């Protein structure tokens, strides 16, 4: 067999292995998705939205408490994380640019994006829960907010940098002060990208469980009091699924399904915005 014939065979083997591993990986992942959809849809019913949580075995059991709680926590986290993230990203792109400080901030922020979220939970426990003396929605939201900031910071920084320098120069040439240039020209030009970054940040944070475990904690009661422990879909999912009660497990799958649809929806929405934003150009 010639060397070239050997190479051609090796090529076929390698490509087959690569395709196979992709199919196997996707098979596992679609298996998980299929279970999620099947069990989730199976467990869905109107009770979920009407009733709050209750001890196992109760007829009128639902997820109202967890759904509302999740919205509150994520909403509050967004209010904390988005303005800070966008402001910080603006600093990096418009003021800091390539300075040592800016690079350091970018690097640290990048590392934070991959750092363990449960550690953030421990941190917030120490600085919020312990002084307050009890769990609270504030603590949970702050933990989620801290996780959100690096994500928003990075996407804002990247998107703002994509706006061409000539646009800024044109605005300056007309006599506009810097903050106006940023507000009217740069932000507007990067609008779609920043929005996508925000949506993706929310999606990422909405799926977090670990940082809530000992900050906002969790229980079965519907509440909107931010000073109390706040139930969340993620922790409820965890508690219910790991319990030995079948009706609780059912609710766990329903929660998983609802949350995943929400997160996937945000992801798809974010990508569509970016896609159409590009198309218009």
């Amino acid at each position, binding site marked *: 067999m010639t060397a*070239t014939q050997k190479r051609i065979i090796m090529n076929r083997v390698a490509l087959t292995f690569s395709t196979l591993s992709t199919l196997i990986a996707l098979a596992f992942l679609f298996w998980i998705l299929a279970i999620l959809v099947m069990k989730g849809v199976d467990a869905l019913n109107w009770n979920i939205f009407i009733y709050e949580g209750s001890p196992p075995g109760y007829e009128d059991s639902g997820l109202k408490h967890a759904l509302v709680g999740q919205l509150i926590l994520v909403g509050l986290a967004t209010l904390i994380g988005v303005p800070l993230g966008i402001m910080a990203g603006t600093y990096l792109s418009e003021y800091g640019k390539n300075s040592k400080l800016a690079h350091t901030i970018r690097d640290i922020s990048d590392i934070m994006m991959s750092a363990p979220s449960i550690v953030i939970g421990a941190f917030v426990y120490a600085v919020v829960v312990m002084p307050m003396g009890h769990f609270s929605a504030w603590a949970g939201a702050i933990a989620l907010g801290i996780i959100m900031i690096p994500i928003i910071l990075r996407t804002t920084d990247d998107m703002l940098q994509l706006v061409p320098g000539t646009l800024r120069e044109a605005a300056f040439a007309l006599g506009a002060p810097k903050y106006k240039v940023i507000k009217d020209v740069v932000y507007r030009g990067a609008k779609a990208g920043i929005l996508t970054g925000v949506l993706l940040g929310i999606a990422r944070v909405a799926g977090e469980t670990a940082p809530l475990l000992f900050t906002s904690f969790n229980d079965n009661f519907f509440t909107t009091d931010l000073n109390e422990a706040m139930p969340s879909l993620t922790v409820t999912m965890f508690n219910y699924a790991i319990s030995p009660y079948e009706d609780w497990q059912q609710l766990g799958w329903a929660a998983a399904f609802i949350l995943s649809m929400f997160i996937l929806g945000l992801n798809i929405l974010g990508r569509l915005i970016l896609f159409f934003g590009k198309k218009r150009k």
Partner: protein
Amino acid sequence: MASIIDIKEECALHVRDFEFTYKGAASPSLKKITMPIAKHAVTALIGPSGCGKTTLLRSFNRMHDLYPGNTYAGEIEFEGRNILGAKEDLIHLRTKIGMIFQKPTAFPMSIFDNVAYGMRLQGIKNKTELSDRVEKALQDAALWKEVQDRLKHDANGLSGGQQQRLCIARAIAVEPEVLLFDEPTSALDPISTQGIEKLVIELKERVSIIIVTHNMQQAARVSDYTGFMYLGELIELGHTEELFVTPKEKLTQEYITGKFG
């Protein structure tokens, strides 16, 4: 009608009614090209951006096949067969028709391994044979003296002009019949450019060369034949001197005198 001279000498390649359409394009990028490529000579392809000269060049070694979806028709004859056929052994074809690209493309390996790469692909393992042929290729590419002491060093340490000569050495090490040059000096400084042009003229003794260039003076300096292309058509092909001094087509005349770029 295009003015294409009849080449009396032997031809390395012969293009006949070659038409090429990029994937998803509304109209063909190359419209029924017919042209002979003389053996052991340098044929330059010139023309404004978008005229199709690079598209034509990349058809000779079927580079377009790397990106599925394109369609073509017609014939390119090489070594007595049509190399556009579906059964054509592309791997073998590319050892016979080599290519040098617009930017130096040294592989992330040592100088020696770069030049030996094509030979190793063909299964040549004998250390003596490899190093002999590597040395010869580097000498033919006028690079040997500069690198003989650092063959094991990474090729990235070489300057742009040296890297391009390395790519030439790599290409001629497999002893091809034809060499395709795609704007080989567009990323190089004037001195390196001179070196490459000198090489091209020397190499034609053994290899048939087709060179695409947007620099008319370069075409005039290095080539024996020049083909002028415009909007996907071959407008004129002739002896370089004649084409530049007394072009037969009006369009050629206008391009050469700079009426459009």
